[in-house]
């Protein structure tokens, strides 16, 4: 197989990697906000289950979670999922795993906000929702952007866990090509692609951070 064909195969499989990345972000970021709110809830019937969920997500390997989500429906309900479920299982496992991490980042950001901001808002007559959306959340975003950026960069690399369920992401493809050609070049090339992808992700976060540099706390 020619070098360019190999690159082409890798690039095609990069589409799968990119899908996992984007779908995970689209679902786990808003879910993370819900997780954070649930974790901070005064209602124990909400906060305790959410804490347990977070601790399981953070305390067990993502690879194991992928397997659980994939085989879970069969073992629990004797349902055989269709062939499309493989990709769905990846999305679900990644989204709930990352929602737990993002949730903790959001929570620490929200809890780091000084009480005075809430009190000033209350006296000025803002509703709770207005206070959160207009005053708290924008400041929290600035505070947590570096941690979110770290997590997103980790996500780029974590997409390679898709191999656990034999989904043809870039990493699985690189391994297959390397085995077929008995060469490490495909793996090395995949490494370069991951690096470039992360480089771009980091640059995008730099742009966000610079945009929010117009004020300080």
């Amino acid at each position, binding site marked *: 197989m020619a070098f360019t064909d190999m690159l082409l195969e890798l690039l095609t499989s990069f589409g799968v990697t990119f899908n996992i990345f984007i779908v995970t972000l689209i679902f786990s970021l808003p879910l993370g906000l819900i997780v954070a709110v649930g974790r901070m809830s005064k209602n124990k019937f909400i906060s305790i289950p959410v804490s347990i969920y977070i601790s399981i997500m953070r305390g067990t390997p993502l690879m194991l979670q992928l397997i659980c989500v994939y085989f879970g429906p069969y073992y629990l309900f004797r349902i055989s999922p269709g062939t499309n479920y493989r990709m769905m299982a990846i999305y679900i496992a990644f989204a709930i795993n990352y929602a737990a991490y993002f949730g903790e980042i959001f929570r620490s950001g929200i809890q780091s906000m000084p009480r005075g901001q809430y009190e000033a808002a209350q006296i*000025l007559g803002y509703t709770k929702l207005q206070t959160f959306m207009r005053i708290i959340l924008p400041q929290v975003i600035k505070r947590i952007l570096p941690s979110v950026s770290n997590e997103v960069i980790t996500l780029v690399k974590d997409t390679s866990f898709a191999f656990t369920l034999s989904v043809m992401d870039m990493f699985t493809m690189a391994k297959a090509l390397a085995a077929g050609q008995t060469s490490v070049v495909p793996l090395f090339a995949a490494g370069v692609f991951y690096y470039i992808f992360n480089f771009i992700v980091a640059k995008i976060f730099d742009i966000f951070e610079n945009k929010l540099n117009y004020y*300080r706390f």
Partner: protein
Amino acid sequence: MKALEIKNLAKTFDGMEVINNISISVEDGEVISIIGPSGSGKTTLLRCACGLEKPDRGEIKFAGSFGMVFQQFNLFPHWSVLKNITDAPVNVQKQDREEAKKHAMELLEKMGLKDRADYYPYQLSGGQQQRVAIARALALNPRILFFDEPTSALDPELTQEVLKVIKSLKDLNIAMVIVTHEMAFARDVSDRIIFMDGGVIVDEGEPDKVMNSDNERTRAFLGKLAGV
């Protein structure tokens, strides 16, 4: 007309009576200073009055809206000075945006900060931030304004500029209740001084009366201050 009437207010923290059956009424346009030793419950009283703390007992009746100026300013750091002042009028009181902006610029002029409208809080001195906070409170046209030690986070020179601004508000005919340790200021600006100790009002009256009080506790407190 009364701007505020507080009746038999009580508040405990962990079983400790911090406010013990306090009643105060504030006339429209009246300026009241509250003085007293640390821990006497002055902050708690203001916080109960404006709903930041839930009292155990008592009645609080406002005739109109109220504002609060905090010791730590509590400006919104992600908004410019102008936005800090106009956002609540526009988004809470639904005032017209242009009107609110015009009003804000007038207030900034009064605060001596007309050229700072586009600055962000972090670009201002403490005294300037506090004056913006005062403008922000005034923008909602309150009938009564509370100040909790508005200058105690400031250097002496900055303190003077803020006190001068607060004194200038007397023309606006807004009632003001000011917790302060600045005795000369309290004496100068107030219609009435309230001396609190141990969660109760120990002494109150016109500034000269309280400053020359026969009350032992008042004398001891003022004497201690003068002694420093």
